[in-house]
Structures are given as C-alpha cells and as structure tokens.
C-alpha cells in the first residue's frame, strides 16, 4: 500500500467570470428584471377587501392564520390548496427538467439571479475579468481596500433590501416600513431581515457556485430526471476537435493529449466511469475530424465566462447550471473566425450520433413534445384545473358540527331528551353575517341555540364562531326513546340566502 500525503479538503478557487453579450445573456437580464421586480414590488400592491380585511394583495398573515392572494383568501383548513400548488411546482420541475434540463438553475433560481446581480456590481466596481484577477493578486493597498469596501457596501445594501422585502409579505407593508424606519418593528422582523441579509450577502457574494455544488440537492435530483431527449447545453466535440489555438493541425490521434470526456449526457470526468486504467477514455476519433483541425480554437472564452468555473467541453457535468453564457461566448468567437455558430449549443444526447453521422439534429419541438413531457403537462394541468374548480366552488359560509359526547344526552325535567352540538360556523365574507339555524329531524324535535332566544346569531366578518346548539326530543317521542336518529343541521345567511348543511345524529335514551 502506497501512501502519499494528500489533502482531503480543497480551498475554493476564486472564479472571475468575464462579461459576455448575446441572446442568452439578454434573456437572463430580462428574467432577472422580471423576477426581482416581482419579488420587490408585490408586497406593495394594494387590493381592497372591505374594511374588516387587510388591503394587501399578497399577504401571509400568520398571526390571524390567513393567506391572501389578490381575490383569493385561504384559511388554514384549506391547506390542500398549498399542497396542490406544491405538487404542481414539483410536476412543473419534472416537466422543465425533462424538456430543458436544468433550466431552473440557469435562469430562475434565486441563487443564480442574486449571484448574477452581485457579479454585475462586482464588474461595475472592480472591472472585468482581467482587472479583477489583477486586483485579486494585488497587495492590500488603499485602492484595493477602497474597491473592496465599495463592492461589499453595495452588496450589503442589496442583501438588506432582499431581507427587507421578505418581511413585507408577512405584515402590512406600509405599516411595517414605518415601524422599521422608526425602529419600532417587532423583533421577528429584525431577525428575519438579519438572517436573510446574512445569507444573501454570503451566498451571493462569497459562496456562489459552492452553494450549487455542495449545498443544493437539485443538481443530483435533476440529473436523474433528464434523459437522452432532454435539451441541454453541450459542446459539439465532433465539430470542435481536435482543438488548438492557431494550430497547424496534424492528423493522427497521437496529437490529442487532452480531450473531452463523454460529451453529452455523460458525467463529470472526476467520476470513475470516464476513466479506465487511469486514463480518460477518449471518444473514438472520427474519420473526418481526424483529418484537419476542428472548429474549437481553444480560446477559453467558454471557460472564462462560466460563473461555475467549469469547462463545458468536458461534457455535461453536475456543476453545470446550464446558464448558456458559454453559448453566447462561443458564438461571438465563431463569428469572428468565420465559422458557423453553435459549436456550443442546446443539444440533446440523442442528437449526437445523428450529427456525428452528418445528419441534422431533431427540431426543438420534437424534443419538447415528447410523450413524457406531454404526460407531465397533462398531470400538471389536471391538478391546476382541479384547484381552480375547488377555488371557484367553495362556499362563503361553512359549518362543522361536533356532537357533544360527554354526556351523549341530558334528561330534562319534563322528561325530554336533549343533545348538545358544538357547531363552528365560518363566515368567509368581508362583512358580518346573520345566520339562522334550522333542523331537519324527526317529529317532536326542536332546536335551541345557547345564549339567544331565537335561532339567529351573528358571525363577525372573516371569522369562525363556536356556537352551542341544542336539539331536544319531547318525552315519549320515537327520537327520545331510540338510540340513534339521523338529523341535519342547516345554517342559512339571512341576507344572501346561502346555506350549508351537515348531517349528524341524535342520541336518545332507549331505557
């Protein structure tokens, strides 16, 4: 057994992504603007629900156990809506991953969006890749301190705004903003802001790709959701190899000292599969490709722009978030050297043999409209339609009835048998409801409500009221003398006429 000293822990290698422009970069800026816009602006949208209810369009009211989303109001017992939305989110992730790989990671994940924003600040303050590299190596003089402190200060402001926006989803935004400004906000608001400020600052500024590679489970899970028909960012090795900068390229495989591992759909070369007998297993040299130099001029533009610090030419790998910036970078270079674009491109594994054989890849639609994706879409839509129906059909008045079983019945002085029911009436309207109880039961039964002379009670707006209801069967009636009698309690809104009915049982005294 040989034993040489190797470190089990690796220091982070700093990454200095170069600025890039192109279609995907533009798309990412747009998505950043939209997602950050939604995040920061949403709590400030107002929505009138009447005087008794908050006027914030989107509000998670934990204190009163309500969730408001524009015209929708969710009570705790309707948590199935949230469960349904989570299932839809899961299925949506299946769908997007099966169709477009880790498109969530590359475009919409908050870690990606905020890292992108932090990188933008970094670039504005410290300059592009080369300037940042120089600054990184420079001694800590006044200039370096000035640039670093400026950058950190701006990051901190963004981080605080991020944490600050979060708390507005849980309280009336203008009120809370005023409380924050006058230092009267509750401690939980300050703690939430502090935690999110800290995580945003460290994750966006310093952890970056480490979060994706070591902390996030998605890369592992999503790798298992992709198949050979999934479109993902890949390098056309058959077009690019053998690569070299201004290389007077010779034929012959001996010239290739280092080449890509399995290109598409393969795994990271650090995994054992790509190695046999300690060597990278190279793709079979193509007859045509081996003749002359490939399109890749080994300019490293794709590596330099990568926020994850990887080389896409090593093949699809776990660290790749498919942000597609390497596509933009490579297209720019290909244009300059007069070669066709798309050396790095959105490709599917199943297209690789087709293209190697000189054919054209399948169209994007053929990849997207696969049965698997259609099934995901169908399931996703079915749950969505189900939730919408449940939402539209739910009543504005609700009733639950709990028969009091301790004791099951009470004998009154005139020999009548009385049952009590703990009734909860939920008024989901923004105004006070006057509700009337009625009873469908056997002959000789009557209805009473604790605390009132008749059977009408008021239920405050947007609230639940516990009411004790009595059903009495007169002496010597069948209901009074039989073990069980089926009855039904109905509440009716005396104004709108809307009603709710619950069936329950009446217990008599068979002795």
């Amino acid at each position: 057994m040989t034993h040489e000293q190797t470190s089990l822990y690796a220091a982070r290698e700093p990454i200095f992504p170069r600025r890039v422009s192109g279609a995907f970069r533009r798309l990412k800026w747009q998505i950043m603007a939209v997602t950050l816009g939604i995040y920061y602006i949403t709590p400030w949208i107002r929505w009138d629900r009447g005087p008794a209810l908050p006027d914030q369009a989107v509000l998670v009211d934990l204190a009163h156990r309500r969730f408001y989303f524009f015209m929708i109001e969710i009570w705790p017992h309707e948590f199935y809506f949230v469960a349904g939305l989570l299932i839809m989110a899961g299925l949506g992730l299946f769908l997007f991953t099966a169709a477009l790989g880790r498109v969530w990671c590359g475009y919409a994940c908050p870690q990606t969006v905020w890292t992108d924003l932090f990188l933008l600040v970094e670039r504005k303050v410290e300059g592009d890749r080369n300037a940042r590299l120089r600054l990184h190596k420079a001694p800590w003089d006044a200039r370096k301190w000035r640039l670093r402190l400026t950058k950190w200060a701006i990051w901190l402001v963004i981080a605080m705004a991020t944490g600050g926006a979060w708390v507005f989803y849980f309280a009336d935004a203008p009120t809370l903003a005023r409380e924050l400004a006058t230092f009267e906000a509750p401690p939980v608001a300050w703690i939430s802001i502090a935690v999110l400020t800290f995580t945003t600052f460290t994750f966006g500024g310093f952890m970056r790709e480490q979060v994706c590679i070591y902390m996030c489970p998605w890369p592992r899970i999503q790798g298992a959701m992709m198949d050979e028909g999934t479109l993902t960012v890949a390098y056309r090795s058959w077009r690019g190899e053998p690569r070299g900068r201004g290389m007077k390229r010779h034929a012959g495989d001996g010239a290739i000292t280092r080449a890509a591992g399995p290109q598409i759909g393969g795994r990271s070369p650090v995994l054992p599969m790509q190695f046999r007998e300690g060597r990278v297993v190279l793709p079979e040299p193509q007859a045509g490709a081996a003749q002359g130099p490939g399109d890749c001029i080994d300019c490293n533009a794709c590596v330099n722009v990568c926020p994850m610090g990887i080389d896409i030419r090593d093949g699809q790998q776990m660290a790749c978030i498919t942000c597609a910036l390497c596509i933009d970078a490579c297209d720019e270079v290909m244009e300059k050297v007069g070669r066709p674009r798309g050396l790095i491109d959105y490709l599917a594994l199943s297209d690789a043999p087709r293209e190697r054989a000189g054919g054209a890849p399948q169209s994007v639609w053929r990849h997207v409209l696969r049965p698997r994706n259609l099934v995901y879409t169908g399931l996703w839509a079915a749950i969505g339609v189900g939730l919408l129906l449940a939402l539209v059909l739910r009543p504005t008045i609700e009733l639950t009835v709990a028969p009091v079983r301790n004791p099951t019945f009470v004998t009154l002085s005139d020999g009548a048998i009385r049952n009590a029911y703990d009734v909860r009436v939920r008024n989901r309207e923004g105004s006070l409801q006057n509700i009337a109880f009625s009873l469908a039961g056997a002959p000789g039964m009557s209805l009473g409500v604790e605390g009132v002379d008749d059977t009408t009670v008021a239920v405050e707006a947007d609230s639940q009221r516990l009411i004790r209801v009595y059903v009495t069967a007169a002496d010597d009636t069948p209901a009074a003398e039989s073990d069980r009698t089926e009855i039904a309690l109905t509440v009716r809104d005396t104004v709108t006429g809307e009603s709710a009915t619950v069936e329950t049982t009446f217990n008599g005294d068979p002795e």
Partner: protein
Amino acid sequence: MASPHDKDHVETTGHSWDGIEEYNNPLPRWWLWTFYATIAWGLLYTILYPAWPLVHGATTGVMAWSTRGDVAAEIQAVREGQADMRAALVDADLATLPQNEALNGFAVQAGAALFRTNCSQCHGSGAAGADGYPNLLDDDWLWGGQIDQIAFTIRHGIRNEVDPDARYSQMPAFGEILAPAEIETLVQHVQSLPEGNDPLGGEGGALFADNCASCHGEDARGNRDVGAPNLTDAIWLNAHDDASLTTLISKGPFGVMPPWGDRLGEAGVRALAAYVHQLGGGEPTPEPTPGQPKE
C-alpha cells in the same frame, strides 16, 4: 470540486486495498471550518445552558435558564395579560354578564379551565354529574339556576363546616322516625310522583304531607331555599330504584360541596358561574321588581 483539467490521471487518497484505490474528491475547506464552528457552538451551548450530567443533577449553565423558569415566566405573563379582564369580571353585574360578549367569552373560557381542574372530580368532566352529584347540564336546580345564585353556591359551598354562609339544610334520617312499612309506602309513593299522581293522595300522600311536604312542598315541587329537590320531574339526583330510595329516606342524604371563594378568588368564582350558567340549564335573572331588593 476537483478540477479535472490538465490531468489524465485522477487524484487518489493514496489508500489502496487489494488494488482498489479510493478517489479523492476533496470536501471544500469551508465545510471543514463550518464543522469546527458547530463544535465550538456546541461547547459554548453547554456552558450557557444546563447540560453536563453530574452525580446529583446537572450543570446549571451560566444563563440560569430552566424550563421551569420558562413556564413560570409564561404563567406570569398570562396573569398580567388577564389582569384587566379579571378586574372587569369582579366589577361586572352578573345578571347582565351574558350580554357582554367579550367579558362573557373570557369568563366562560376561564371557567371551563377552572371546572376541569376543580369541579370535574365530582360533577364529571362533561358536567353531567353522577349518583348524588348534580347534573349541571339540565334545567333542574337544587339551590337556584340564576347566575348569581350559582355564583353564591360556588363561593360558599353546601353543608360544609368551613364557610358560615354555606347553603345548609338537612333531611332527617327517617329510619329513626318512621316504621319500615311506612318507608316502603313512601318509596312507592315518591316513585309515582313524576307520573302525575297527587302528592297528597292515598296512604303515601298522608305520610308525605306529615313528613315531607314541609320542605318538598305540598305539590312536591321542592323548595330552592332549602335545597329540596322537585320530586315531580323526570330528574333524579340519586338512583331511584326501591333499594336506593329506601336507604336514602332511612338515612337521609347529606351532599357536601366545599366553598371555593377563598381558593379561586372572586374572579374565579364568577368565571365558573358564567361557565356553568351557559351549559344548557342556566336560568335568566328576572328584572328586579321595585321595592324588592335583590339577593
């Protein structure tokens, strides 16, 4: 993540067993520091909070924190939070309490908690009573079902020797007064009363008039001033088969309830009264007629 660049040979840890080597995919160094930080945090935690077991007990921690202290602080906070409501309840007019929704709601909730702790042992957790212990759900009351009558009963208790204001009465042990045959006749007579028999009719009626009517009334409908139950209704405080009734009349019942005024305080008594009053049998307080002072 180990960078594969410039290597056609992947790094191994150097460990090799029968030719099987272990690849080195090194953890990030910050992970290691995070691990050390959690250890430091854990040690700090055991200094601040009770942690290390000793022979008797455990270290108390420098912050003097305990779950007991937490509970005490929580109880104190609830007490302070309820102080206003308690004061309002003590000052309130019991007769109109049910109309005061906020205060009555507080009283009923507080009363329910007090009932479960202090009353359920005899009256049952559902207040349905038991043999000899009144059912508080029905519409029959021994000493009165208006809310202030209930409060008085709770405050001073019944037939106890502690509170001089306790409600008091005593049914004689008729076994020492009447012959067994007479008691037998009375038992049959009393059992027939709820069916509408004339309380004063027949042989049993004569015995009833001589011995019972002074408290239970000539109509046998009872007398709340002395806690004498109504014998004509469908409700029985005790078992009413022949044997039980014979024992009851021979020996005389003597139900005792302790006074709760000193133990629960006036706010507690009123809360309990409000709770019991809304269990289904509470009687409304009549409008006071002029010239007749309220109890």
